[in-house]
């Protein structure tokens, strides 16, 4: 009796752990989660924008132009975090041979690339009035640019391999190699920069930030997080359908959708 319950418990644990790693189960769950994250993202972004435009004081040195940081800094954070998360998913997919992990990595890559681009563009928009130049070969700018190249390489490699399993694993390996290299690249660029330019503009010159400024930035960062989750889930749902189009559950799903549409059409 006891043994049996232990066995049951074991089975229960097993199912619980890996239940959501099956696309069939994860698909509807992701569908339910998306609206939550999307609404949270919208509300947080509205709150963040309100704080950053209405509440946060004007900077006495930089005037109104500093408000770009409310988009710029969270985007730069996200660009780095997403790369690490992506590589983690990719590594999990490679180690456990889990389809869904690789799909998550693939779903995250475009969002990460977009945030990197956003950080670069907003940075250069801010740089023009502040430094008088659209682009400075500063260590952070340069390494952000290289991060964009790494994202693009990952996306290009994945999209040029037709076999999805091979694409997943090749992409995963590349993401892991990239993660090992990111700190090396960052430090090399930093030393290169300090060697070449005696005194460049100090970007870290924000000793005391008003609490409202920090609040606005944090709100925006949270909004970006929620946006990332929502978009990644949406994208992973599309990838799931595309990859699993020959399976029974996708067929059932499409039949269901078709019949409900035809009912709606008849009404």
């Amino acid at each position, binding site marked *: 009796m006891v043994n049996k319950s232990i066995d049951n418990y074991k089975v229960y644990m097993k199912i619980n752990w890996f239940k959501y790693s099956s696309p069939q189960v994860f698909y509807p769950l992701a569908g339910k989660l998306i609206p939550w994250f999307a609404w949270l993202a919208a509300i947080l972004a509205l709150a963040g924008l309100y704080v950053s435009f209405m509440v946060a004081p004007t900077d006495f040195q930089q005037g109104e132009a500093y408000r770009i940081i409310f988009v710029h800094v969270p985007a730069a954070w996200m660009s780095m975090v997403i790369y690490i998360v992506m590589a983690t998913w990719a590594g999990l997919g490679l180690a456990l041979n889990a389809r869904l992990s690789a799909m998550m990595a693939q779903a995250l890559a475009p969002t990460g690339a977009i945030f990197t681009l956003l950080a670069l563009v907003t940075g250069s928009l801010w740089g023009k009035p502040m430094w008088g130049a659209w682009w400075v070969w500063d260590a952070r700018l340069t390494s952000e640019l290289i991060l964009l190249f790494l994202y693009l390489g990952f996306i290009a*490699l994945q999209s040029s391999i037709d076999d999805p399993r091979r694409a997943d694993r090749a992409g995963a390996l590349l993401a892991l190699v990239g993660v090992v290299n990111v700190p090396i690249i960052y430090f*090399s660029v930093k030393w290169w920069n300090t060697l070449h330019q005696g005194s460049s503009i100090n970007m870290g010159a924000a000793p005391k930030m008003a609490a409202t400024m920090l609040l606005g930035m944090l709100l925006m960062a949270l909004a970006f997080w929620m946006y990332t989750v929502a978009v990644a889930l949406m994208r992973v749902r599309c990838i799931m359908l595309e990859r699993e189009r020959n399976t029974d559950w996708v067929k059932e799903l499409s039949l269901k959708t078709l019949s409900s549409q035809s009912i709606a059409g008849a009404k």
Partner: protein
Amino acid sequence: MIVLKRDLLLAFRRRSDLATTLFFFLIVSSLFPLGIGPEAAVLSSIAPGVLWVAALLAGMISLSRLFAADFSDGSLEQMLIAPQPLALLVLAKISAHWIVCGLPVVLLAPLIGLQYGLPNESLLVLVWSLLLGTPALSLIGAIGAALTLGVRGSGLLVALLVLPLYIPVLIFGAGAVAASQHGMSAQAHLSLLAACSLLSLVLAPLATAAALRISAE
């Protein structure tokens, strides 16, 4: 060892491949004076960067040949199922690639450095930096070559994958030569270059072997 010897022999039988890499290096580094102008001061100040970028590109265009022939004639599969560890065989192939494509560039570089008006001690540093740095290029490049094996448009794809990873080597290599030009010691840069090469010597064959297994599946 046998793999190394075989690859060297194959490369020697097809000497035009070797010549292509060298000529590419020569042509790229000759284009810059034509584009920028013959002022000696300008040329010698851009020389470290130009020579290193040219060496980097020369090493990169030959990467696609690293595994392609073995992949198409099936000998790569033999290596995959061979009793020897795959990483070791891969290392032998990479060494052969470096001897064929990297070493000649190292030997030719001082000649082009002379054309750019580099002083003698900088020429020496240039040779040292290339000698220490180009193995890292071959090693890191092998990962990209293995990942893109048999993929359409693999030549361009390799560039996109590998060039960002080359950046530290480029920075330290060109930095070493530039430091010696300004009368500073190039020691730190050379040590860092050697560190890059050693690190990739440990990790790159393993990653390349994993990539080959993925590609040849």
